């Protein structure tokens, strides 16, 4: 146990100092990476631990983002206050989506959520809600301003660094919550349902309740990520939540390692930085490179990055 605490302290120190070692732009990229990590962790709870496949988590990311954007734009909410509300709204929408999902498994659920991901951009442009969502124009938000001046290593506490600490706190909180959830009673029930649903039912696990709650919590995670993403980018528009966003989340979950908590960080780094690399490799087909990497990973290391790390750990510990 001692070793893990040492890891945690070292990581904590690095996390706090990091933004002062990087330029504003890199910090902005780091913020996006942490936001994606929360979204992927949410998806991981549902797919990695719960075994329910979702190709539509971009929809909850969009709902979270728009909840925050509309509250900040129309109701002059402060950015921080929108986070819990976005979580709540997405929890409810997750549970609502969870009910039909109860009767679906495997391919069918993947299909239903894929349809959701494709329909969301159009729904956001719907005339009926245009005066709230700004329709196709989207909504421009202003970033939360740092509350005090601060200088360190020759760099000022800019909006991005302020945003970094907000995102860092939320990320640590979410990862800690997930850790407890997964190792607690509910977590065991979720995993039991994934591996032996009928046996789990026989042991008195209330499948309906656990599955819908898992869907709700997973949606809430992705919703909070959506809200943070909207604030960090300070602009939302229907075209920001294209179908490929949901695919990227799934890719991140797989690359990082399904059924693992830290895996979400590696997955987030992958979907944040690899597209830029792929863009350099081939201007006309960045997605071909992206797809090829994904295929290679599925064949070579289905356990993802965490799978490899565990294999190394198990390897040398023998």
């Amino acid at each position, binding site marked *: 146990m001692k070793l893990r605490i040492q890891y945690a302290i070292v990581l904590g120190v690095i996390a706090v100092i990091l933004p002062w070692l990087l330029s504003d732009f890199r910090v902005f990229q780091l913020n996006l990476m942490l936001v994606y990590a929360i979204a992927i962790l949410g998806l991981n709870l549902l797919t990695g631990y719960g075994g329910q496949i979702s190709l539509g988590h971009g929809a909850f990311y969009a709902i979270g983002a728009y909840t925050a954007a509309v509250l900040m734009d129309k109701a002059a909410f402060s950015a921080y206050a929108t986070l819990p509300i976005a979580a709540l709204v997405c929890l409810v929408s997750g549970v609502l989506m969870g009910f039909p999902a109860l*009767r*679906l498994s495997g391919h*069918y659920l993947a299909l239903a959520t894929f*349809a959701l991901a494709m*329909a969301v951009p*159009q729904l956001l442009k719907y005339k009926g809600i245009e005066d709230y969502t700004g329709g196709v124009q989207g909504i421009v938000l202003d970033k939360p301003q740092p509350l005090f001046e601060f200088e360190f290593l020759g760099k000022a506490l800019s909006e991005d660094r302020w945003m970094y600490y907000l995102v860092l706190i939320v990320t640590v909180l979410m990862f800690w919550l997930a850790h407890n959830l997964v190792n607690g009673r509910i977590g065991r029930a979720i995993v039991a349902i994934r591996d032996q649903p009928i046996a789990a039912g026989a042991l008195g696990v209330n499948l309906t309740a656990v599955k819908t709650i898992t869907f709700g919590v997973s949606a809430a995670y992705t919703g909070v990520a959506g809200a943070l993403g909207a604030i960090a980018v300070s602009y939302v528009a229907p075209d920001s939540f294209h179908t490929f966003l949901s695919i990227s989340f799934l890719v991140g979950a797989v690359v990082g390692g399904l059924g693992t908590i830290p895996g979400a960080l590696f997955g987030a780094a992958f979907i944040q930085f690899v597209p830029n690399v792929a863009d350099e490799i081939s201007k*006309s*087909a960045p997605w071909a490179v992206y797809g090829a990497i994904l295929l290679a990973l599925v064949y070579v290391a289905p356990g993802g990055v965490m799978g490899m790390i565990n294999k190394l750990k198990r390897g040398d510990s023998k």
Partner: protein
Amino acid sequence: MDGFLLQVFSGLANGSIYAAVGLALVMIYQSTHHINFAQGEMATFSTFICWWLIDSGMSYWLAFFLTVGVAFIGGVVVQRVFIRPVERKPVLINVIVFVALLVIFNAMSGWIFDHTLKAFDSPFPVRSAVLPEYISGHQLGSLGVTLAVLLVIYLFFRFTPIGLAMRGAAQNPDSASLVGIRVTWMLALGWGLASAIGAVAGMMMAPIMFLDPNMMAGILLYGFAAALLGGIDNPWGAVAGGFIVGVLENLLGAYVIGSDLKLTVALVLIVGTLTLKPNGLFGQKVVTRV
């Protein structure tokens, strides 16, 4: 009344495209119990091959059948190379392979054939012989081709030994291998057929929608809705489902909810069918052994 008939007929025409895509999806589901998310992009890629053949001087029908052949072989190769290694793996890994294939085929279409809009000529006369003011020549033609493909598929599965073997392999792979059927090749054949049907759907659609790498993006969802509504394991059902979705989408778009929510119609259809009637209108009961 005139407007209504126009909507119904253009719905039927669109429906024939959704039916063909739905049929391709059923082909793969029947033989592999997988839903192929890359079906749309594979069809677009095959249609580009046909366009390239025609563009380099080949006659339409020669290019048409050559493309169907190439698409068939392509489908078999894709199954043997990409799908077979993960056959026994959990559903999620398969879904990810399909998604990766979707993304790769889409990018390759853009890379090899670039993004300029391409016209695709139709083998059918412009004015249709039947009810010309409601339906165009090509729409009537593609309706006919879709039904012809369905008939060929029906005859193939009903009366040829390979067709029978494929059905057997799909239902009971263990027994199939015990009567000497190479089950993995049957799955590959299923993919080949689906890819060929997808190519036909693409070639029927390109003259209406004009060919570009993202031609099929919108259609795939309607193809899913068609296959599910009709019954994911029933070819006839998928075709009927396609026509229903086409007409329903047009009528709802024109008269009920306005044409800017049409994708949502497909979403509601898919989720509704899956939850209320999982095996669709005409599908067999889905029985899973404990």
